[in-house]
């Protein structure tokens, strides 16, 4: 291997993805630069001093490039071999954060490492989960048409997600749902997807409509279905039963489950964000957790604030069609958007380059995702394909949720925009995801297990 690695390094590596990767990373540094830019200081000196986020991100990128090259130099078999061990150690690290973790921005999910940098195991665990899931599905003895396999895969995904929730990282936990793409591709019945889709529609409807009205609507739908299908199900009592069960579950979800989750499981601010997405206000007095803390502090309940989303929408909206121009965004310059470096980085692009900029930017992302899907479909080994779809899922979920939340289509959950947002852990994770895929893709003629 060592003798001909030169060949191996370049042969079969998908250059388009590497170019896109570098382009995105550079756009990211530029976007962070726009956020941090201060006309009163010389940007060159502050860049060299390394104290600004954009210079840090630049060093992260250099570091990640080394990691990427290193990954490309490894053997594909390493990943199949180490998948389960990595997954296990990832879970252990996440558990360890509960003990030695450091709290940043209210979530205890960081492990301090040398040089003032912090590592977020939940981020890295995405890579390990992807590998482990691929390993599991590609086992010869796994028959992914069986419900048993679906359940095992589900548990593998749920474990890190639950740990992430424990660390108050709701966003990261949600990302694990992205593995549904890979599972769907490998044979998860479409009924489940349809079921999930209708379930989320039901949840949104719960938010939007009065519970009584919604119950009436659901009953009417169920009644119509029974009338329409009644003839066909004349001898099939099961069908009628299923409809009735679904109707009852829906009603109870609307009336009991959703309010229970909103008031008792989620934090007040989370419920508030969900409600603010549909343009409604949530009374934190209803929230048990908030009520408990209110009793402790003896303060009155605060009015819900959707300041972040408002300012973020203003920033993107003020870009207009052509944008305000590079470094000319007033929202960005005035630091009106909180967390603009990380979760709301899209606003700086939207404000500076307008619709033209955001459209082009989304085009780049879409091209990147479709390129990954193409790579996934050309794999001979199930391992690579499952892994590739996991990467597609993770990227897609991050992009869709992050951008949707900045433009008010999704509640604010703290997840970064891949390759753009400031942050070493995030960049490292996405680098690992992409370059492992590239390594596997280079060996697509091999059958990996």
């Amino acid at each position, binding site marked *: 291997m060592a003798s001909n690695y030169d060949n191996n390094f370049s042969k079969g590596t998908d250059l388009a993805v590497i170019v896109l990767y570098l382009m995105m990373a550079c756009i990211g540094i530029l976007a962070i630069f726009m956020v941090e830019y201060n006309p009163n200081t010389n940007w060159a000196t502050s860049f060299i001093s390394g104290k600004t986020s954009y210079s840090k991100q630049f060093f992260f990128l250099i570091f990640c490039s080394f990691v990427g090259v290193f990954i490309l130099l490894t053997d594909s078999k390493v990943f199949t071999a180490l998948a389960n061990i990595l997954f296990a150690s990832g879970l252990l690290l996440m558990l360890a954060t509960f003990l030695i973790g450091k709290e940043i921005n209210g979530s205890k999910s960081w492990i301090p490492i040398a040089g003032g940098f912090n590592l977020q195991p939940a981020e890295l665990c995405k890579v390990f989960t992807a590998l482990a899931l691929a390993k599991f599905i590609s086992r010869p003895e796994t028959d992914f048409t069986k419900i048993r396999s679906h359940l095992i895969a589900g548990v593998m995904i749920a474990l890190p997600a639950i740990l992430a929730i424990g660390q108050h990282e709701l966003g990261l936990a949600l990302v694990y749902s992205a593995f549904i793409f890979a599972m769907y591709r490998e044979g998860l019945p479409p009924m489940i997807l349809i079921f999930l889709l209708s379930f989320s529609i039901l949840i949104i409807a719960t938010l939007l409509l009065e519970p009584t009205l919604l119950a009436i609507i659901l009953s009417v739908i169920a009644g119509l279905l029974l009338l329409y299908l009644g003839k066909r199900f004349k001898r099939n009592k099961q069908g009628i039963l299923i409809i009735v069960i679904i109707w009852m579950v829906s009603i109870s979800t609307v009336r009991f489950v959703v309010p229970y989750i909103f008031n008792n499981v989620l934090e007040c601010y989370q419920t508030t964000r969900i409600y603010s997405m549909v343009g409604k206000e949530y009374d934190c007095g209803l929230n048990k957790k908030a009520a408990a803390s209110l009793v402790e502090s003896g303060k009155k309940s605060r009015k819900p604030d959707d300041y972040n989303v408002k300012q973020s929408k203003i920033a*993107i*909206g003020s*870009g207009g069609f052509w944008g305000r121009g590079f470094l000319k965004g*007033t*929202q960005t310059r005035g630091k*009106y958007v909180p967390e603009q470096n990380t979760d709301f980085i899209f606003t700086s692009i939207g404000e500076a380059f307008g619709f033209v900029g955001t459209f082009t930017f*989304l085009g780049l992302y879409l091209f990147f995702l479709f390129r990954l899907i193409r790579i996934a479909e050309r794999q001979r080994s199930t391992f690579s394909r499952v892994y590739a779809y996991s990467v597609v899922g993770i990227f897609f979920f991050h992009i*869709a949720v992050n951008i949707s939340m900045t433009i008010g289509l999704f509640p604010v959950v703290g997840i970064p925009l891949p390759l753009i947002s400031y942050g070493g852990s995030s960049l490292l994770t996405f680098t690992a995801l992409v370059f492992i895929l590239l390594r596997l893709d280079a060996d697509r003629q091999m059958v990996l297990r």
Partner: protein
Amino acid sequence: MSVYNQNRGGIIQIIIGTVFFLIVGQLVSLQVVSNKYKLAADNNAIFRKIIYPDRGIIYDRKKRALLENAISYDLVVIPNEAKGVDTAALCDILKMDQAEYSKRIVEAIIKNTRVKASIFEPFLTPEIYAQLTENLYRFPGFSLSERSIRNYPYNTAAHVLGYVAEVDVNFLKKHESEGYEMGDYAGMTGLEKNYETVLMGQRGVKRFLRDNKGKIQGAYEKGEFDTTAIAGKNLYTSVDVQVQQLAEKLLQNKIGSAVAINPKTGGVIAMAASPGYNPNLLTGSKRRKTIGRLLLDTARPLYNRAIKGQYPPGSTFKPLGALIALDEGLITPNYGYNCFGSYGACGDPRKCEHHNAGHAANLQLALAYSCNSYFLQVFRMAIDNPKYSSAKAGYVKWKEYMNAFGFGRKLGVDLPSENKANIPDTAQYNKDFGNPKYWNSCYMLTLGIGQDRMTATPLQLANSMAFIANEGYYYTPHFVDSIESETKEEAAQLAPFRTKQKITKIPKEYFDVIKEGMHDVTVFGTAAFIKVPGHEYCAKTGTAQNPHGKNHSLFVCFAPKDNPQIAVAVIVENAGYGSTWAGPIGGLLMEQYLNDTLTKESQLKADNLAQVDLMPEAIKNWYVRNNKSAYLTPIEYNNDELSDVWDMEMLAEGVVKTKTTDTNPPAPLPNTDKTNKDSLLPNADKKKKLNP
């Protein structure tokens, strides 16, 4: 391999594409369709700072500045930066305690947040300013900020100039499109208000970028959209500062008004109303202390009586009454009336102040002696003019003349809220006396001697003198002769003041008779003892009955007789005979203007006159009751010091420096109609003693 699921790759692509499509849809609605976000962003981040230009300066006829701009300093604080302040030292300089200091800092934070500058102490006195500049390094976060205020070097013409003040909500509503903002200053009265657009200049706007805490980040777009401030334009008025000062001085301790007009241009030379106030009392830090008191003062020092006061003109109307009759051909200059001391043609005899036969043998004599009977007769002739069908038609014609002389309507002077006073309408008489068929000239007989319901403002009276002096025309009285680098619009604004107002066609010879009569007044008539050194002049005295107490003392005149350069009207309320009080004031004003100085004798007379206290008793009592130390009027023109008046306690004790001969308290007479029907005051010796 699991190729059987290959179509699912396509489905995943469709799902991804759909989500991206939704996102793009929302982006279109945010960025392309709606522009409210851009406005919201601008509201957020662009801070417009108004740069105030210097207001224009107002000059008198000899280019002496009646008002100028002075720099005043405010102590300004940014609470966030005020750390490590030597508060003890600062409190010492500002003469406040620590508690007050903390209170003001909290107020500043509430008003303008921690990061923005707020005024800590406005309008610093020069001493405090000096102390602060020396010690400012000990007070981080504090700075001195300049602001421009008005300053009146001659302490005069407060009513004419008006004042500037911070705009209020009502003002902003009225001037919505003119770009005023809360905290702006604008002219509120007088010339400051009337010429606001000229004086204020054009404000500049600087745009700054501010951050989410309201802190300024720097110029927006490097000042590309900024506009520079253009200074206000100066006004050149016809006011003569010395005449103005003299008029105010002479009216001190009296209620009344004096107006002097240059008949050749209509330019107002002086306009004084008493009680007035020192305009410097309404600038800077003094305003807060003074304005409330001025507003509450029962003598109404903010009220410009010269254009708003309505006075019965009394005998000063007589020359005009004669002009009407002459022009209508009802009398000739030789017309005489045999007066024996009263007029009884309408029943209930009206007294005249003269008994000697022949004092109304012709028009000239009647004017000189101010014979009531003569002018009552002349008035009746005008109303019952055989040319017209009825008394009503005659009255309408008479009123037409009066309006042409500038009475009963606004003259259009360049000051706000001029009063038109009153020349009664026939409707008013119809209402009082029923059908016009039932009333005749006897019903409003005393109009003929400037009483009844006829009123005029001092400005209208002075203007009528200009009309006689010019022999048939006048220029609309005005202050502003020209505006610095006048534009077309500004010239249009001033155009009415440059147009001759000639409405009547009364021939010159009639004016000559009137002038001669008025000249006789000053030679052997009612004003014979008032002289203007070096000049012959024409005048008419008036002693007007009024419902508010003692008679008003009136005096109208113009000089020199042959080439009139100044027309004056003086009114001293409730003072008595026109020749006693208003007359000497008018004489001195003419002397000052024509000779540009007063003789030693006149100077002495002026000083004495200024000391005379003719305030009605009711007003004096009000001062005593309300424990006010003075009427704020006196302004020591001779001393540099703006000393505050003499004490009211002295007044209460009756230790007033000079006192009029008349001491009986003038009880207010509320019944108007009754006084009108009452006869005029019995005659008194014509050679009235002039109080030294």
